[in-house]
Structures are given as structure tokens and as C-alpha cells.
């Protein structure tokens, strides 16, 4: 194995402090089975699939309840029942991450949790061919556990050595509150390593590059011991700077390859997989379990006891947050605090692509909040004395400032990991000048949200840029 001693990083980005209510170092615990599960038939990157069950049907955990015919133009991933019980409803609900109406199957639990496993699980996965592995991963519905929700089977469908050159393993988590995936890496290290081997095999024995946070020396040592004799693997240590875990940034940092604007990492012959995906791949191939359970952090400043949980996908977040909210007014966010979406109702379920459920304290009026030294504040600037030994930084939904005209401070240019000009992009997009924005590389934006985070004028740059990108895509498809 090739070991790179030097730390790698990228230009821009921001080191987040530890926000209050972060379940750092908390061991994974099993959440109780939900009484009902709401399973959306569109998961992450995948297209919406057709339901295979009807209201009243009895389903088992792991049974496929929705599936499309494989179609490389419209990649989709089968959807599984995540608890056993009776199908109570099939209806269109707004998708929690984008609000588009999407078919969702509601299953009422029978409390049995009877499983329907995949066929012929085997420990000897090394004997399976890439196609066989790809089929298992597809049937198990393994997708990326991150925001993109990229179906593994879609990547492996390309899975011939001519198409894919590198498998990049994202083992660095830099988003605030995303602790569960780190915990999974510690607790399921064997499954992670074997899952990585399975994914590599499914892609046709490509080169593997692992991006690991340098703050995990134990994992680094173990990886080196375990993978010492393999020449296909390289471990890179990375500085834990947000958004290092983003696909495009990770591939650029590790391999010096640039993702085309508006494209995916597969366009440059790379596949990025995360820890959750590796573990899910192992469980699918060796244990025969479809991807119906994921790790999730229940965190945030308004949460009484932050936890890292193993949760069935489709568990309503009310079951995770009931009796666990400390503030009367809390904002509940599914996924990332930087790029996720806040939820009006607690009836929305945990999704495959949400590594966290976060409840933040709502903004409260304070007298002269900027006058203090700011020991517990997180800032890109040095204007506040953020004491490094104070464990937790304050986290509320407050803008921490009044909205003002852009003063052209240039912080958004300094943090942008893609070297863009966010202030100008936002200005163009807000005024519907999408063609101008495209000229200054609008589609290279990875929507990490840092520009809006650091803006002292509190301009909603991320929202403006997202709107512009949506418009640009509509114009292309029109």
C-alpha cells in the first residue's frame, strides 16, 4: 500500500468549531423500531420508482416495494420496506429535501420485524464477478449516505475498468453535527474495510484512494496495518476543513482531477463512496441485508441529549425527537445545517441520504449581542475571540446580523472551495441574469453554502445561486 505522509487540503473552506449539541464520541445505539415507516419512492439521486405493493399488503423488512426497469438514462434504485407490517397508505407527499410531490409508502409495523433477506449471502465475495456484485448492490438499494444519495449500482453499472479508474472513499466528515458516520467508522471498521474491497471488486478492481481526516490517527494506523500488502490502495490524510467531504473537492484534493461543470465525478472516471455505503455494501453481500437501516446523528442546540443512532429508514423524525427537545421553539433540519432543509412538520421520515436530524434553538432577541468578546462564537473572521478550549460553540438559527447591501468584503471569494465569485453569481442569479452567471462558471458551484455562512451582510447567496442553477437547468431541458 502506498502511504502518503503529507497532509492534503484545498484552498478556501472553513474549519467549523464544535457546535453545542454535537454527539461527538457518543457510541452508536439502536433506535427502537418505529410504529410506522414512511418510505419515499424517490431516493436521493435516483428517479422515482413505481410501487410494487398495494394498500393492505403485508410486507417484510427488506422486501422490495418499488422498482423501475433498469435504464441507464434514468438511473433508479429499488426501494425496500424498512419494517415488517401492513401497507397503510400510498400517497403523494412533498419530498422533505426538495418539496416536490413524491409517492410515499406508509407501513404500519406489526412489531415482528420479520426479514426478507437477499438470496445467497456469502462470505466468499471474492469469488463473485463484478456483474454479480453489481446486481446484489442494486437489489440491496445501496446508495450514497450523503447529500447526493448517489446509487452505487449506477456507478457500478459503468463498472468496467475502461470507464472507471479510481474508487475514492470518503472517510472524512467535516459538516457540523455529522458525527454518526465517524462513529460508524470506529465501530464497524471490519465491515468498512471489507465493504471497500467489495465495492472495488464491483468496479473491476480499480485503484482505491481513501481520504481520511488527520484527526483519526487510530483509524489511520489500523488501515495501514490491514491494507499493508495491497498495492491498489492509497490512504491520504486530510485536514478536517469543510467541505472536504464533497465529491468534487475530495477528488480534486486527492487526485488533482477537475470535475466538469454541471457534471459528476463519474464523468472523470471516478466513483466516490462513503463509509455508510461501504458498510451497507458489506451487509448486503455478506449478510444479505438490504440497505434499510442507517446511522444518523440526532443533534443540535435544542436537543436535550444528542445521540448517534442506528435508525430504520422511514422512521418519522417525531419518534427521534419526542421528549428530546429542550427549547420550546426549535428549528428542525433534515440533513445538513448548511445545505439541508428545515421541516415544518415532524412527520417527515429519515431518508437514505440524511446523515443527521438537527434541532436548533430559534433566534432570540438579545441586547447588544455583538458587544461581547464572543468566546463561544464560531466565525471565519478573527473578530470574535473564539476560545479553542471552550468545548462548544453557540448554535442558533439567528442571522447574527442585519441584512445589508453587499459591502464587497470578499469573504465569499476567500472561502469558496471552487474558486468562484459567489457575490457576483448571487447578484446575477437574483436578477435573473442566468446567462451572465453561466459565463462566470455558475455550474461549477457545489452548493456547499459557505458563502452564505460567512457573509457579514447576511445575503442569502446559496438560495440565490440555487435558484439560478435551477433556472439554467430548466433552460437546457426546455
Amino acid at each position, binding site marked *: 500500500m502506498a502511504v502518503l505522509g503529507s497532509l492534503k487540503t484545498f484552498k478556501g473552506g472553513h474549519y467549523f468549531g464544535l457546535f453545542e449539541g454535537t454527539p461527538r464520541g457518543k457510541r452508536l445505539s439502536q433506535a427502537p423500531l418505529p410504529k410506522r415507516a414512511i418510505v419515499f419512492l424517490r431516493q436521493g439521486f435516483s428517479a422515482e420508482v413505481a410501487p410494487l405493493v398495494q394498500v393492505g399488503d403485508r410486507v417484510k423488512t427488506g422486501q422490495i416495494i418499488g422498482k423501475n426497469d433498469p435504464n441507464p438514462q434514468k438511473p433508479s434504485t429499488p426501494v425496500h420496506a424498512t419494517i415488517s407490517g401492513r401497507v397503510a397508505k400510498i400517497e403523494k407527499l412533498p419530498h422533505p429535501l426538495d418539496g416536490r410531490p413524491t409517492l410515499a409508502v406508509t407501513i404500519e409495523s406489526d412489531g415482528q420485524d420479520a426479514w426478507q433477506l437477499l438470496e445467497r449471502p456469502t462470505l466468499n465475495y471474492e469469488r463473485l464477478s463484478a456483474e454479480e456484485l453489481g446486481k446484489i448492490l442494486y437489489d440491496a438499494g445501496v446508495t450514497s449516505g450523503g447529500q447526493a444519495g448517489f446509487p452505487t449500482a449506477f456507478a457500478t453499472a459503468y463498472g468496467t475498468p475502461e470507464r472507471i479508474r479510481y474508487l475514492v472513499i470518503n472517510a472524512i466528515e467535516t459538516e457540523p453535527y455529522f458525527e454518526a458516520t465517524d462513529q460508524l467508522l470506529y465501530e464497524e471498521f471490519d465491515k468498512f474495510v471489507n465493504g471497500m474491497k467489495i465495492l472495488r471488486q464491483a468496479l473491476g478492481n480499480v485503484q482505491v484512494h481513501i481520504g481520511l481526516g488527520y484527526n483519526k490517527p487510530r483509524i489511520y494506523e489500523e488501515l495501514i496495518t490491514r491494507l499493508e500488502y495491497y498495492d491498489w490502495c492509497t490512504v491520504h490524510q486530510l485536514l478536517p476543513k469543510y467541505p472536504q467531504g464533497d465529491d468534487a473537492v475530495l477528488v480534486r484534493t486527492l487526485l488533482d482531477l*477537475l470535475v*466538469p461543470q454541471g457534471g459528476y465525478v463519474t464523468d472523470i472516471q471516478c466513483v466516490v463512496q462513503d463509509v455508510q455505503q461501504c458498510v451497507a455494501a458489506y451487509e448486503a453481500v455478506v449478510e444479505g441485508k438490504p440497505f434499510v437501516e442507517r446511522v444518523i446523528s440526532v443533534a443540535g442546540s435544542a436537543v436535550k441529549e444528542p445521540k448517534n443512532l442506528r435508525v430504520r429508514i422511514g422512521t418519522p423524525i417525531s419518534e427521534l425527537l419526542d421528549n428530546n427537545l429542550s427549547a420550546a421553539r426549535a428549528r428542525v433540519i433534515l440533513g445538513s445545517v448548511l445545505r439541508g432543509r428545515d421541516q415544518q412538520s415532524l412527520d417527515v421520515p429519515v431518508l437514505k441520504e440524511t446523515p443527521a436530524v438537527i434541532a436548533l434553538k430559534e433566534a432570540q*432577541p*438579545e*441586547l447588544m449581542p455583538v458587544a461581547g468578546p464572543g468566546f463561544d462564537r464560531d466565525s471565519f473572521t478573527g473578530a470574535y475571540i473564539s476560545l479553542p478550549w471552550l468545548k462548544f460553540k453557540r448554535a442558533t438559527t439567528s442571522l447574527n*446580523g442585519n441584512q*445589508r*447591501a453587499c459591502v464587497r468584503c470578499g469573504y465569499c471569494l476567500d472561502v469558496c472551495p471552487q*474558486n468562484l465569485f459567489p457575490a457576483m453569481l448571487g447578484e446575477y442569479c437574483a436578477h435573473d441574469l442566468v446567462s451572465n452567471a453561466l459565463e462566470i462558471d455558475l455550474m461549477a458551484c457545489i452548493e456547499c*453554502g459557505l458563502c452564505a455562512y460567512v457573509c457579514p451582510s447576511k445575503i442569502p447567496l446559496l438560495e440565490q445561486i440555487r435558484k439560478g442553477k435551477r433556472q439554467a437547468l430548466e433552460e437546457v431541458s426546455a
Partner: protein
Amino acid sequence: MMGFPERVYEFFERVHHRLKEQKREGLAILWEGLKDAIFGGSDKAARQAPYIRDAIGMQRYMGTPLIACIPLVIAAIYCYGWSTLAILLVTYVVGGIVELTFCAIRRHEITEGLLVTCMLYALALPPTLGRVENWWIIAVGIAVAIVIKEIFGGSGYNIFNPAITGRAFLLLTFPREMTVYWYTPFNPLTDGLGGFVHWSPETAKGIDAIAKATPLGAFNDPNLPVPDLFTLVTGIGRADSLGAGFPLLLLLGGAYMLYTRVIDWRVSIVMIVTTGLFSQFLHFIAPTRFPDGLFAVLSGGLLFAAFLNATDPVTSPMTRRGKWIFGIMLGVLTVLGRGLTGYAEWVTFSILIGNLFTPLLDRFTIPKAYAGPAISRR
């Protein structure tokens, strides 16, 4: 159970609501400004992602240069007496009135930039403007500065640094008051409490307190002795503008602002280094016209302007390459202007010229994205 801040907040909201009901829009804007000043935006919640925002807001951002100016103000009061405070007060009162009037009439929010503008404007004035008969000049200058800023749409849209606009206006309109009379400051080695117990050096020492020229003026005038390095660096006995004569304090404030990232070294340090090197180079060619590099950097308002005026975010470029070009341009223009024109204080004009080029510099230095050429999916 509502806490004290919530009750105060509710009171503000109620009054604001009443003002709106009575259609007193202008008053409502001013009241809203007061509320924003007190609550600092802590009451405003993020409606879209990201849901957590950086602790830096415009108040703290604009407060940082003010913090950096505190040592200058104290030093200026010591050196030039309490008339310094009068200059600051006149500036703030007149500037505030003009700005608030604009805000109330044009219904736009009151911005924090005004506080910095007034501070920088006042600190760049000659101390002799503290004489009561000269106060109206201060008022005219700041009024012109704010009006020109507001003509372009207010803070964030102005193309010229307002503090520099006001100063340039005064330099051209009142050249005598702005460049001829200076005070010899109180000397901490001999004068004890100095300006802390006097109105101005003039009231304490009479005609003796009047100085002929600033160090830069002395260099341009062959009849006057050029002050030594000790005077230049420490500011002891150095006749200069209120805040410009203390290089050590300016370096301290500049370091603080650089540390907090409120200013960028690509403008400030680049401008200072360029001035030093370029002046040193020309000094070899024409030693009577161009001072050596160290003198060029330490004299006049160069350090003051490099840290506080040139780095004004609104009127300097945003891109990294743009900032480099801007800094170099300002340094070169300053040296050339000082050496080749009659005006000693050419920093002012070089910043105005640089401001003009800012949109152009941004336009032509847009960074290249870390991404491959666009591909089309269909």
C-alpha cells in the same frame, strides 16, 4: 415567562407597528434602525439554508476598524488636546444628521458604515480645524462626503471612499486651512499630561504651538529641516493630521485588522511595500523630488490610508488578483503624485483614482473555477 430582552424587543415592535399605522414611514425607518442597533440582528432568523450563520455581522465588521482607531483617538487627544474630540463630535453629529435624513426620506436602512466613515474622515483632518471658527469647514466636508455617497445609493453602492471624498473636497476647496497651519503636538517627554488638560496646543503655548509643516511638507520645502527618524516613527513632536502621525499605533491597529481579516494584506501591505520600493528606486534618480523608501512610508498619511482608507471593502476590489493590482497601483500613484505635483498629500487622490478602477479590476480578474469545461447531458 419573558426575559428582559424579549420585553424590550416587544416594546420596539409595538412602537414600530404604531408608526407604520400612522404612515410615518421615515420615523419608522429610524426607529427600526435603533432597534437593529440594539439587537444586532440576533432576532432575525435564517429562513433558508445555511441555518447556522457566521457570528460576524455588519456591526462587528464595521466595529473592528473603530476598535483599531481607539489608540489613535487617545493619542490624538493627548497630542492636540480636547479640540480633537470637538472635531470628532462635529463630524459625527453633522454626518449622522445628513445620513439619517437621507435614510428617512429614501426609506433605506441605516448602515453601520457611517460610523467608520466619520471616524476616518475626522482622523485625517489637520488638528487646526479644531479651532471653533473652523468647525463649519469640518461640517461642510462630511456633509459633502455623505451626500456623494448617498447619490450613488448609500453604503455598498458608493464608488468613492466617502471619508476620502470629503477630505479631497476640503483639500481642493480650503487649501489654506488644510495644508498650511499645523500644531506642534504636546510632547510626552516634556509636557506631562499634555493634551489631557488642555483644549489645544495653541491655548497652552500660543503662537509657539504653530508648526510650519508636516514631515512631508518639510521634505518638499527646501527651507525647512526634515524631521529625523525618531520623530517620524514615534510621532513625538511630529506635526501631522490627527490620526496619521503615529506609525506605531497604526501598525498595531493594522495588525489587529489583518488578524481579524477585516482588511486584506493584498491591499494594505502591498500598497505600503510598493510605495517604499518605488520611492527608493526613484530616490536614486531624483533624490530631491523623491524621498527614500522608509521616509515615503512613514511620512504623510500613507500608513493611515493603507490600513484604513485603501482597504475600505466597498471601494476596493474583491478578487485576490484585483487586490494585488489595486495595491500596487495605489503605491505607484502615491509616489509619483507626491514627487511630481505640488500637493504633498497625494495618497488621497491616488485612492480616489484607484476607486474609479475598482469595478474594472473586479471585472477582469474573475477567478477561474476549479472545474473542467462544461458538459451537456443531452
